[in-house]
């Protein structure tokens, strides 16, 4: 451990706080019906993720992790929200239609998923490394992101949900390891996510053109 | 075992001569019982002779099968006759075939008889063939079961051996097995020889005749062979019945013994013929689709006979 213990404690608290805020944002996303707000919520969530990475980098003096944080800010806080915003404007959707589960049920489910996240993460929490206690939140983010994905019907919301799952995974990476993943892997993941979103954007655009709708529940011609 | 040519010739002649006599007797006695005068006993011989001399009229639709059939029917019946012990305890051709071969030969005759019925293309012939084959089919299992019963008891399917076994002290006359087997075989005999209640040999009514329907297109010597063949077949089956179940008086060897044997045999035969006559006069012909009931009764009797060998041994 490079950092002194007091500051490590501070860092740990900061990380926990930010992780908790990520979860709150996630829950907001679950009940939010407006797509543009959703994108903004995602941007803020990603910002917290970058913040966590920054804190880890600061307390561990790890240059690599700074790069990761920077990449996160560039990609997930700036570029992707911009891209999605542009998509939304191009295809003019404002509001998500009725989700599969209504808000109270969704919150209930998310509560259950959070519980599950804690149970799954319990064997690995309480370790001496920085940010380890956020693993439960990371898993919860993954699970609720997943839930969000099938709860919503608009293609863009589903993309957004996928991205939050991705945030959850990255949080888990930080939570479970000292410095996150090796840089080469981080780069790989980063570019994959970027390309994925771009391709998804292309598809969304084409679907919009062909179906005159962004409702994925209309994409049900292929059966059996 | 060896072939004894004189025996063969003797039995052939016996078969040829005795068969029409039995048919004649049955006809005559039946008439008597019905208060008619009836044809003389010898009438059948005269008929056959007459048929032989007549010209033959063949259907223009018929093929070679039509002309072959009478020979096959006749020879098969005759050959079957040579496999059965008649006056002596040994059949002349027992080496060539056992009781199964006998059944097979009779079936061969029937096969060609039915083909001959179909060949001219008349509806009667077809009807007759169809019914004949049907009745034979349902009669066959009963026949086989009855035969099996005695064959199992004798440990052989060889007729000579079966008869010899019947003469041995092991044989019990009123063994329920034999009684039931005899009853089964008797029913089969009625069916196979086209007797009332299965078929009426005297009728030419379109819808009821079976055997006669097949012969409808036959004439001249072909008809003679067919009729003769039929009466030989009847004789063979009756012989089978009397000699298996009443093996008294079967000659061993020597001309005198044989002559005595022939006499006793004729007496037994006539007794059986009388039984047939009584059944024929006291019963009405059954509807075609009731015949299987009768034959299934025969089958049940056969099964019971078999089971009783099992139960009463």
């Amino acid at each position, binding site marked *: 451990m490079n950092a002194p213990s007091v500051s490590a404690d501070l860092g740990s608290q900061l990380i926990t706080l930010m992780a908790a805020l990520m979860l709150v944002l996630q829950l907001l996303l679950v009940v939010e019906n407006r797509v543009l707000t959703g994108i903004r919520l995602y941007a803020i969530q990603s910002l917290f993720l970058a913040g966590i990475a920054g804190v880890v980098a600061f307390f561990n003096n790890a240059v690599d992790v700074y790069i990761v944080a920077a990449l996160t800010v560039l990609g997930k806080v700036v570029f992707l929200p911009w891209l999605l915003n542009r998509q939304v404007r191009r295809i003019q959707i404002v509001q998500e239609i009725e989700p599969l589960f209504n808000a109270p049920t969704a919150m209930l489910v998310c509560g259950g998923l959070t519980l599950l996240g804690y149970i799954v993460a319990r064997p690995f929490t309480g370790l001496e490394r920085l940010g380890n206690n956020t693993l439960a939140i990371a898993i919860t983010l993954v699970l609720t992101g997943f839930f969000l994905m099938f709860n919503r019907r608009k293609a863009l919301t589903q993309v957004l949900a996928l991205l939050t799952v991705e945030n959850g995974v990255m949080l888990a990476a930080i939570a479970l390891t000292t410095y996150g993943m090796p840089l080469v892997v981080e780069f790989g993941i980063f570019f994959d996510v970027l390309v994925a979103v771009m391709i998804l954007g292309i598809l969304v655009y084409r679907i919009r053109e062909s179906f005159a709708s962004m409702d994925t529940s209309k994409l049900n011609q292929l059966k059996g | 075992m060896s072939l004894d040519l004189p025996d063969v010739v003797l039995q052939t002649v016996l078969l040829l001569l005795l068969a029409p006599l039995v048919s004649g007797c049955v006809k005559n006695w039946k008439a008597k019982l019905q208060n008619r005068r009836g044809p003389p006993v010898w009438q059948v011989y005269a008929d056959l002779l007459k048929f032989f*001399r007549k010209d033959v009229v063949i259907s223009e639709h018929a093929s070679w099968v039509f002309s072959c059939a009478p020979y096959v029917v006749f020879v098969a019946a005759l050959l079957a006759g040579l496999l059965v012990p008649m006056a002596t305890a040994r059949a002349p051709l027992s080496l*060539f*075939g056992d009781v199964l071969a006998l059944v097979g*030969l009779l079936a061969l005759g029937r096969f060609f008889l039915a083909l001959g019925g179909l060949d001219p293309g008349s509806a009667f012939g077809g009807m007759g*063939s169809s019914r004949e*084959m049907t009745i034979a089919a349902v009669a066959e299992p009963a026949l086989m079961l009855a035969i099996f019963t005695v064959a199992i008891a004798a440990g052989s399917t060889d007729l000579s051996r079966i008869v010899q076994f019947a003469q041995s002290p092991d044989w019990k006359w009123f063994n329920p097995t034999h009684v039931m087997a005899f009853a089964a075989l008797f029913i089969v005999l009625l069916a196979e020889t086209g007797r009332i209640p299965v078929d009426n040999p005297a009728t030419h009514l379109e819808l009821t005749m079976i055997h006669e329907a097949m012969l409808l297109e036959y004439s001249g010597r072909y008809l003679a062979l067919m009729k003769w063949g039929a009466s030989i077949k009847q004789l063979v089956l009756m012989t089978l019945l009397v000699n298996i179940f009443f093996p008294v008086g079967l000659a061993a060897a020597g001309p005198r013994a044989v002559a005595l044997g022939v006499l006793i045999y004729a007496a037994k035969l006539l007794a059986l013929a009388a039984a047939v006559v009584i059944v024929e006069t006291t019963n009405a012909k059954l509807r075609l689709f009731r015949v299987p009931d009768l034959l299934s009764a025969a089958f049940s009797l056969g099964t019971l006979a078999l089971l009783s060998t099992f139960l009463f041994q």
Partner: protein
Amino acid sequence: MPVDAILSAAPLKFALLCYVAGAFAGLVFFRFERAATLLSFGCAALASLCGLAVCAAALAGGMAAANPSFDLLPSLVPWMQFTVRLDPLGAFFGLVVSLLGLAISVYSLGYARGFYGRKNVGVLGAFFNALLLATTLVFLSGNAFFFLIAWEIMALTAYCLVSFEHEKDEARNAGVLFFVMSHLGTGCLILGFLLLFQASGGYGFDGFHALGDAMSPGKRDAAFLLFLVGFGVKAGIVPLHIWLPSAHPVAPSNVSAFMSGVMIKAGIYGLARAFFDFLGPPPGWWGVTVLSLGVISAVLGVLYALMEHDLKRLLAYHSIENIGIILMGLGAALMFLHSGHPVLAALALIAGLYHTINHAVFKALLFLGAGAVLHATHTRNMEEMGGLAKRMRWTALFFLVGAVAISALPPLNGFVSEWLTYQALLQGFGTTASLVRIMFPISGAMLALTGALAAACFVKAFGITFLAQPRGEHAAQAQEAPFTMLLGQGILTAACVFLGLFPTVFLKLLDPLTQQLTGEKLSGQLTAANGLALSNGALSGGTVSMLGIAFAGLALLAAPLVLRGLFAARAKTRLAPTWDCGQPGLTPRMEYTATGFSKPIRMIFKALFRPRREMQREYDFSPYFATTLRFESHVEEVFQTRIYRPLVRQVLRVSRRLRALQAGSIQAYLIYIFLTLLALLIFAL
């Protein structure tokens, strides 16, 4: 005599190569019909001839002969070897295959002409050769893996041949049904062989010999049932037979002949191989099961055959019947082995196997005859035939011989094998004291019923097809088949007669076989009177001599001829119309039909057939003067309507229900994954 030379591997390899060459020749020359026909079927005939020599020599050489055994191909991996091995059982079936292959190939030289310009004869020849090759290899393979490969290729080529005239829906559906059933059977076989594999640790047949002792009873019984079902499908045992009556008729007739004659015998081969070679001393219920199945198959087969007026379907149902008869022999043999009577077992086995070759010969003969009829009349419907005996004399004669043989009438071969079966059954009564023995005579009685019904059926088949007036235009203009087709039938007719008249000669060939499977050599005991007569093997048993009966019959023919000479010397013969009840104009429409012929039997067994009839009458003023009359009559195929169709319907219904899983909604798909994830996370805790 260079028996050793024949028994070396070379001639066998040559035969197999010939089949391959024939197959390729058919494909290469498919644009030249004559060349393709000549080359492919010529090669097949040559190969069969060669195979015939090899197999006969191997059987004649007995157990002691150094039978060829070699690897056809280098093995891919150690446990899969392409071992070709000529043991007595294989050689016997090889003999059947080769004999029929020869006759059918010769026949096909002429038969294939019917396809010129219509279908690709080269492909037919190629598949035909492949089928022959695969079937031969089925009988000669000495390794379970190789056996299964040959088995599947046999099914595959047979499928292609059944669907050869695939323009007809009937042929396509029949092909699919055949292949599906066959594959279900193969599945059972695979499991069966794997059970053996588990016990022996290898796939070689040598290692499987009498393996049953080393297996637990449960596994042994399982293997028995698996083999019974697996091979039973191919053999066409009721109730696994449903593919047979639809597949055999639609194939080209030469193929039908082969399928009915040989291919279903592959099932018998397998049963014999599995029960007598592999599984060791049988428990009592095996034999009872097999015997009962045999009885059921025989009786139901012939009953359904009687209801057919499609000539080839009729023949196909008769195959089921005869398989039943063969099974009676095998079942009885199993029962005897159980009760410790190897001699009797050998007798029963001989009865079954003798019937196997007999059925192969006469059924192929009948199918070839049916093919010739089909060739001439372009229909399989007997109701449109008739009068062919005058127009196709030789075909009619050959068919008649086949009909007499299959009806088990003396003096032909069918009678001989049924006689042996009867003898085995009769003697079985004394082998056990339990009530089970009642099965023997009852089976015998059922065999008698079968025989009599078969006779009825063939009176109908021959009578309606060949006798009386032609019922259809094609039948009226029918022409005799070409020489090669007649020659093919002639070979089989000769075989029928030979197998009928000289069983004692042929039975010697079965000695090594019974010795292999039951440890007994029987042919010596089965001959009597210097080989003239067949005896049942027991000291006091019955004898029968077909040769004697035939000669006696010929001699007795003197009687009617003498009588004719005596009395009828001056009698004339003249032709006249058939008696028409005084109403002139007897037309073919007034003849008895095939349906009419079998009506009494339909009525007697109506509980089984559940006949339905529909009559529609149109009339102007009185119902007694109908203007048109439509009559339909149906017979229900119980197994199809009561078992298979509901089963298939159920499977399809379940499948359609399952389709709802894939309803097209991505939400649903995500939920599947989500639930799986939750389940696994909880599982991994």
